[in-house]
Structures are given as C-alpha cells and as structure tokens.
C-alpha cells in the first residue's frame, strides 16, 4: 500500500493562487486574496492523501487548481510526471480521463434534470465515441460496483437519498477508469450510518481498482481514519504534514493541536484538555504578518509575528511550519 519509493502520481510544486478582490465598487482599491500560498506535496500511487482544514484554508481552491478549472498564479502541477500547464488542449483532455472528482453535496453535484444514466455516462459520452448500447452496459456495471440497482438507471436525483446520490456521483467518477480520485468532503452532508457505507465503498473500490485518493475534509477523525498521509492547511498554507498516525498522535504545529483537541471524540482517551482558540480564521485578503496563525496561537513568540516559518522536516515524513519546532 505505501509504495513511497515509486514516483508520485500527482506532484504539486510551489502552487500559488491569488485572487483580486475589489474592496468597493466606487473606489479603485483592491486587495489580493492569497487563497493558496506556496503549497507543495506529492501523492504516491495507491495511497490516500488527506488534507484537513477549516473554511477559508484554501482546500477548495487547491482542488480547482489541480483540476485546471482555474489558472494558477504560479507553480506547477505534475500528473504522471507531466506538467499539466504545458499540455495542449487535447492532451489535457486526455489526462482529464485519469483524474476525477467527487464533490461534497451530492444533492447539488448532480443535475436534477438528468436521469442517472445520463449523469453517469456523461464523462463517457464526452471523451469516447462508444455507441449507446455499450454505454448503457458500462453504466449498469458501474451501478453494480457502487451498490445500486438496474432499475435506478432511468430515475432522477430527487428520488434518491443522500447516500445513494453519492454513490451515483462515485459511479460517474469511476466511469472513465481513472487512476486518481479527488474526494471533496464526500461524506460531510451525509448521516453517520450512511457515511460508513460510503467510506466502506470507497475503500473497497480503492483496492479493487488500484485507485489513488486525495481526501479533503474538515473532520480530522474521518481523515485520520481513511488516509495514509495527512496535510493540515491554514489560510492557504500547509502548516503540518506527515504520516496519518504521526500527525494525529504527535501533532507539532499548534494549529494541528488545537484542531485535534477541538474535534469532539467518542473515545474518552482522545479527549484532551480543550484548547479554546481565540477568535476565528482571519480574512484571507488581510492576513496577519509573519505566521498566519500567530494571533490565535497559544505559544506565540515575538518572532512569530515577524517571520513566516518554513516547513521544516522533523521526522521521516513529518514536517511542520512553526518556529517552536526550531528550538
């Protein structure tokens, strides 16, 4: 499972994405929103890479950049060794077959006016020239893989429950036999018992189809449960990264520690003394100087407000961006 010596399937190198935000309609002033700031990571084949972060941390923008839905401000994205930005339109289209995404809210990620057949077959119809009958067969196989029935083929989204909708979304994502699947909070809109079903399904198909996952969530427990690696994002930057167990049990960055302690847990032993943070995530268009977390940090030192810490290696795969780690 952990083939770390292989070449990475997806490599993000110093990715930056800035937006310009107009401050007021009348005045010409505008601020730069640093949605993603200098993010780098590698995802190895057949692994599950988890990204944890709260709202405003940039994970959605990161996904959009990886999938080339928006243009990068700077940085590179390498998929299967090739730089996505340097590919021609046709080559990019081909690459897209190997990268698919499952979105957060299945109630709105599926067109309510399309039948299940049309929804699941859309990627196939876009990228291939297969005739209708074969498409139907393939969709039936996909539906079976995700645990849905034959007669669901002609139904519409509003007839299904959240869990079933997410299965449809997964079937759609699998239709082009991708190598890489990005999952943006795939279970956040679902009930607990349904979450378990979807996570189990994802695990099963990962093994069956040799898939690589990028799993994004704000739920640290869930991410820890399913991922091999975890990266913690705050205000556009990765503040800590490493093997799932390392990050979860030995968090080095104060934000990770806070995240961990704030996450409600059923196990009493993981219920640490609550570190209550002050305030909330700052505005991305007006970030604090130095380390973005320092105004809320319980261990903030002088240097934290002045210099932004780099990601330092503290273990085999464990990295953290914090001045505390230095000492």
């Amino acid at each position, binding site marked *: 499972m952990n083939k770390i010596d292989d070449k990475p399937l997806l490599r993000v190198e110093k990715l930056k994405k800035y937006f310009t935000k107009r401050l007021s309609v009348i005045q010409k002033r505008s601020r730069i929103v640093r949605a993603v700031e200098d993010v780098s990571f590698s995802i190895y084949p057949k692994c599950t890479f988890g990204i944890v972060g709260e709202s405003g941390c940039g994970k959605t923008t990161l996904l959009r950049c990886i999938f080339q839905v928006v243009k990068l401000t700077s940085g590179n994205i390498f998929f299967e060794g090739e730089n996505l930005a340097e590919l021609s339109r046709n080559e990019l289209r081909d690459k897209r077959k190997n990268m698919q995404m499952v979105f957060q809210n299945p109630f709105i990620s599926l067109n309510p006016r399309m039948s299940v057949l049309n929804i699941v077959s859309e990627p196939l*119809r876009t990228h291939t020239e297969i005739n209708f009958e074969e498409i139907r067969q393939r969709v039936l196989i996909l539906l079976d893989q995700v645990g849905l029935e034959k007669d669901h083929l002609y139904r519409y989204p509003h007839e299904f429950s959240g869990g079933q909708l997410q299965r449809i979304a997964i079937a759609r994502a699998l239709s082009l036999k991708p190598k890489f699947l990005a999952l943006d909070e795939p279970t956040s809109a679902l009930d607990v018992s349904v979450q378990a079903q979807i996570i189990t399904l994802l695990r099963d198909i990962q093994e069956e189809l040799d898939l690589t996952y990028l799993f994004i969530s704000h739920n640290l427990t869930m991410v820890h449960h399913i991922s091999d690696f975890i990266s913690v994002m705050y205000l556009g930057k990765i503040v800590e990264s490493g093997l799932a167990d390392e990050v979860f049990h030995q968090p080095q960055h104060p934000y990770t520690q806070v995240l961990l302690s704030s996450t409600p847990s059923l196990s009493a032993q993981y219920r640490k003394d609550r570190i209550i943070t002050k305030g909330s995530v700052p505005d991305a268009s007006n970030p604090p100087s130095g380390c973005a977390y320092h105004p809320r940090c319980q261990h903030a030192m002088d240097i934290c407000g002045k210099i932004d810490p780099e990601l330092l290696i503290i273990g085999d795969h464990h990295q953290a961006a914090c001045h505390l780690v230095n000492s």
Partner: protein
Amino acid sequence: MIILEKVLNITSSSLFNRLEIRFQEYVLMWRVFKRDYLSLVSFIVIVLIVLAVIFAPIVTPYPEQGEGLPNLESRLQAPSTEHPLGTDELGRDLFARILYGGRPSLTLGFLVVMIACAIGIPLGAIAGYFGGWIGQVIMRITDMFLSFPALLLAITISAALGPSFTNAMIAIALTWWPQYTRLVRAQTISVKELTFVEAAKATGVSDLSIILRHILPNVITVSIVQATMDMGSAVLMGSALSFIGLGIQPPKADWGNMLTSARIYFSNAPWFALYPGITLLLVALSFNLLGDGLRDIIDPQSRRQR
C-alpha cells in the same frame, strides 16, 4: 444523442418501467395543480376555447359566415336561438365569427411566444454563461429593445412592413424576446454556479454541451411559466394591432378587427362589441391564471404553503 437514445429505448422492455415511474410523477403534479381551483378552471376554459376554435366547422352551423360571407337580411340582430350571440353589421353570425376569428388570434399568440422564446432563450443563456463582453453586448441590445414601449414598437414595425398576419406576428415577436433574455440570463447566472456545472467542467465537458444539457433544462421551467402568461398578452397585443388595422384585414375574422367594426354600432348593438371583447378578456385572463398555477407547481416553495 438524446433522440437516438429514445428511439432505441422504445424497443426495450424497460420502457414500461420508465412510463410507470414518470406516470407517478405526473399524477403527483396533477394533484398539486388540481388544488388550485382557479388554475384548474382556467385550464379547462382554455382547452374548451381551443377545441372550439379548432373544430369550428363542427361547432357552429354557420361556417361560411364566420369566414366572411355576408347575409344582409339579418344585420345586427340581437342574440337569439338562431344566432346565439347575435349578428354583426353584415349579418354574419357572431359566434361563428368569434370562433373563426380565434384561429388567427390564438395562432398568432402561440407563434409569437414561440419565436420570442427561440430568440430570447438562447441569447439569455449565452449572455449569462459567458458573461464578459458577449454578455454585455447582448444585454445592451436587449435593453435597447426593452426601452421602446412595446405596442408602439410593434405598430412601427408592422406599419413599415405592411399590414398582414405574418408581419404583425414578426413585429410583436421582436418586442417580446428581450423579456426571455433577461429572465434566462438571470437564471443562467445562478445555475452556472451550481456544483453539477462545476463537475461537468472538471470532467472536460464542452461549453456548448454544458449550456444545452445542464443550463437550459434547468432554466426552461421559468420560461415555460412566463410563456404561458405571455400567450394571453400576445393575443391581446395581436388584437390591438388588428384593431388599428395593422393585422388581419377584413373580411377575414379576427377579434381585433371585429372590435374595430363594432365600435360604431355600440349603442344600438352592444353585443357586437361585447362578445369578442369578453372572449379576449377570458383568454388573456385564463392564460395568466394558468401561468400562475404552473409556477406554483414548478416552484416547490409555494407548494408547501398550501
């Protein structure tokens, strides 16, 4: 692709399964619709009128009179058993004339709305989806058309082209399409932000496909509601044009030109003006209420308030 799929599906046994599923949905929609008595009544009224107009030769015993053959012996007769709504200034049975007059009037209303939609909806979708300078150009042209008072614009175009059914139709359609552009553009802007559009983009679906298969089906419902309500207004405007002589010319029957002729005789033969007028009112009102009722089915919010 969709048509191909449908054709092939007819041969498959799952057709019955699908029909059954769709049937249940339509039953549900009908039940919601039924509750609104006003809409139901207007629906029935429209159906009756349309049927009567289509089957005019069977409904009225005076088909030739409806088509303009005068019968000078029975001029301006009050409603009687022979002539249920009376006769006009040339002795023609009024009921027959109203029915036959309905043909151009209703057809005009229908075609105008169709043309307006055919122009307005795609423009709105393009303007909304692409935005930028295309959107700006389209919207400015739309605004231009919208700033003319509709009736005046229609009169001008019609007068320029010459009085006839086709020209009246073109004239009105040209004043009507901007509404749809505005409507559809607003809807498109909100729909294109929805996740499933993003999902399609991430898969690499082309812009054209996205507009056709994702945006349009989701904005069409609002347009249908608007179109239904507009049908009545289009009929009214068509009649307005023929009233001033720019549409169907006499002796062909048309509600508008019937009113023109009826004006002079209003004091001694009020039925002559009254009945075509009431028919117009009924048609416009019914389409309006029907559109309201449709909106209530389509908009789930208002459904809950019943």
